[in-house]
């Protein structure tokens, strides 16, 4: 089924569905303005009472506001509307869903005449709230070897384009060190145009080091030194170059309060870098399958010329391909990294995390992190009525310029429901089986 999105500045128009078969969508949606309280029969009666149910919905559009980002669920709901007979209960449900998901002040659906006498169009007239307040939990995870990691943010949007965000984080599964602290950011999402965003972020993070990392550092004093606290000021600009292609560029000015050896003092250090990220994300929808392609490239470069005590260049490539057909999803994630020069720990690559070589202990692989990374993960998911089952296979290598740590493998299974996931991962190696359990949301 073709699903065309014809976008204008303040209007999204969903094209005519090829097949105009009437499906009993009444069964899928709860009652709207006809609060009869008697379930399906009431909805059926309500639909029967509306004179417009004999018309087929030709198109759906949104008016009143621009720059609304529709979720996949909402797009699917719109897609359901187009080509079906008009159903007031379904319309009310979609309106409520829009209001809830997009944090809108109001959604008023208008039924308007279509291009032919038996066709109608639906116009959702939307109105944003003057001030939007949003609390999210982007990450919440328990890892049986690394403990808890969590991140929470609260954001408010003022005067439509100005978003202020405050976040708290404690993460023990991403870098060589556990970091905890807060972040404050301001983003203007309309700098002359919706295509340009400007942001300023300030992070204050405290570090905790694993014993394995500290012991490894004692063996090789040439490796980077540990730090207790890290402050980051990061201005950035995001430009939507073309619809699926986004460029983000900016500077990261970090002040590190070093962790001195007992009885000595250590001056603060700076790690000032410029960075740029190019993102390409596109969804291809076919009649019976959906494909998603996401490719990222990130470069961070610190020079002495930026008053930085570190000089390094870090490249990170990421590619993701997802194919969904019916209840089945196949996903492939590829990540590669390359780091040259003298960098602080937080720039180093780590595997044995929540997403890379799951099941392995990252301190066993390299407690200091690596400067070269190659990793690939293949996941297969099958959606059941209540849960989604998944199996995954990770393979990757982490090494330094001169050495080679070899390729490691891990296997895992898991179940998820909505945003919650429970997984168990096994590192593939000779000898003992040492599984790792992970449970959480949004990871």
């Amino acid at each position: 089924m073709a699903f065309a999105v014809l976008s204008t500045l303040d209007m999204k128009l969903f094209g005519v569905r090829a097949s105009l078969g009437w499906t009993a969508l009444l069964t899928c949606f709860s009652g709207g303005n006809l609060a009869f309280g008697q379930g399906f029969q009431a909805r059926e009666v309500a639909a029967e009472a509306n004179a417009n149910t004999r018309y087929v919905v030709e198109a759906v559009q949104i008016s009143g506001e621009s720059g609304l980002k529709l979720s996949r669920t909402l797009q699917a709901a719109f897609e359901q509307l187009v080509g079906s007979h008009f159903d007031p209960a379904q319309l009310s449900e979609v309106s409520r869903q829009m209001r809830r998901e997009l944090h809108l002040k109001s959604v008023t659906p208008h039924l308007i005449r279509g291009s032919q006498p038996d066709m109608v169009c639906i116009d959702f007239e939307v109105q944003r709230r003057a001030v939007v307040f949003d609390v999210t939990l982007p990450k919440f995870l328990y890892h049986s070897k690394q403990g808890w990691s969590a991140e929470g943010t609260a954001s408010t949007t003022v005067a439509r384009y100005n978003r202020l965000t405050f976040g708290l984080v404690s993460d023990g599964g991403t870098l060589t060190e556990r970091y905890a602290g807060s972040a404050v950011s301001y983003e203007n999402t309309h700098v002359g145009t919706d295509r340009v965003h400007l942001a300023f972020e300030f992070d204050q993070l405290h570090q905790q080091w694993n014993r394995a990392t500290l012991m490894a550092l004692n063996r090789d004093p040439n490796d980077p030194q540990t730090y207790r606290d890290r402050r980051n000021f990061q201005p950035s600009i995001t430009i939507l170059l073309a619809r699926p292609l986004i460029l983000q560029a900016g500077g990261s000015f970090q002040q590190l309060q070093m962790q001195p050896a007992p009885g000595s003092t250590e001056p603060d250090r700076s790690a000032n870098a410029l960075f740029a990220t190019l993102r390409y994300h596109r969804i291809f929808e076919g009649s019976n399958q959906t494909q998603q392609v996401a490719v990222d490239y990130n470069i961070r470069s610190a020079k002495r010329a930026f008053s930085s005590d570190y000089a390094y260049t870090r490249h990170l490539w990421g590619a993701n391909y997802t194919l969904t057909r019916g209840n089945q999803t196949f996903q492939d994630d590829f990540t590669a990294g390359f780091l040259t020069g003298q960098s602080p720990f937080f720039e180093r690559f780590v595997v044995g995390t929540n997403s890379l070589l799951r099941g392995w202990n990252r301190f066993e692989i390299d407690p200091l992190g690596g400067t070269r990374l190659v990793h690939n993960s293949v996941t297969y998911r099958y959606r059941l009525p209540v849960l989604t089952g998944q199996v995954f296979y990770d393979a990757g290598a982490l090494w330094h310029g001169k050495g080679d740590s070899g390729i490691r493998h891990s296997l895992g299974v898991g179940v998820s429901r909505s945003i919650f996931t429970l997984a168990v991962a096994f590192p593939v190696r000779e000898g003992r089986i040492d599984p790792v359990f992970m449970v959480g949301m949004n990871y």
Partner: protein
Amino acid sequence: MIALTRRWCLIAVVWAPLALGISAQALSVRVDNDYLRVNAPQLEFLTGKPLARLEDGNTVNYFGQLTVATGPERTVQSRSVVRFAFSYDIWTKRFKVTVMTPGSQLRPSAKNLTREAAQAWCLDQLKIDLARVPAEHPVYVRVEMRSEDPREADRIIGDGGINLSGIIAVFSRPVKDKQVHVAEEIGPVTLAELRKPHP
């Protein structure tokens, strides 16, 4: 001053019967076989925000109530309550009305109606059995139409039909911004007067 008084008298003499006539015509009661029914051509309830919602393709529900009451305190002797579902065909620009009786398979409806015809059809569905109209006392006949607030409907409509105490409470409540509530009353009249054939 005298001229003014005369002028006012003249105006009063000329216009009063007409005004009274209009007032009298706002609600008329008739006996139709064994039922008491009303006509109220000037009772306009398809107006305001409910009408705007209808023109946007929505279904808008109304509660209609016809009561027969006695005494200065209007003690209700009998009552007829009907729930209507209105819709507006955006191509033909005509209304459709369906009687929504919970638990009943019978749903009388009419379509391709003008606004006036739809309102009249609705009022015609409100009827009270003459056996339940006090014959010995003069009565007040009152008709009310109120657009439905979905939250009100949840409390009124149940598996067993329309909840009487709920409907009484709803009709006595002040209307919200998006609602329409209109009412007309006539009386006191006796059943004997109503049975008399109109000239």
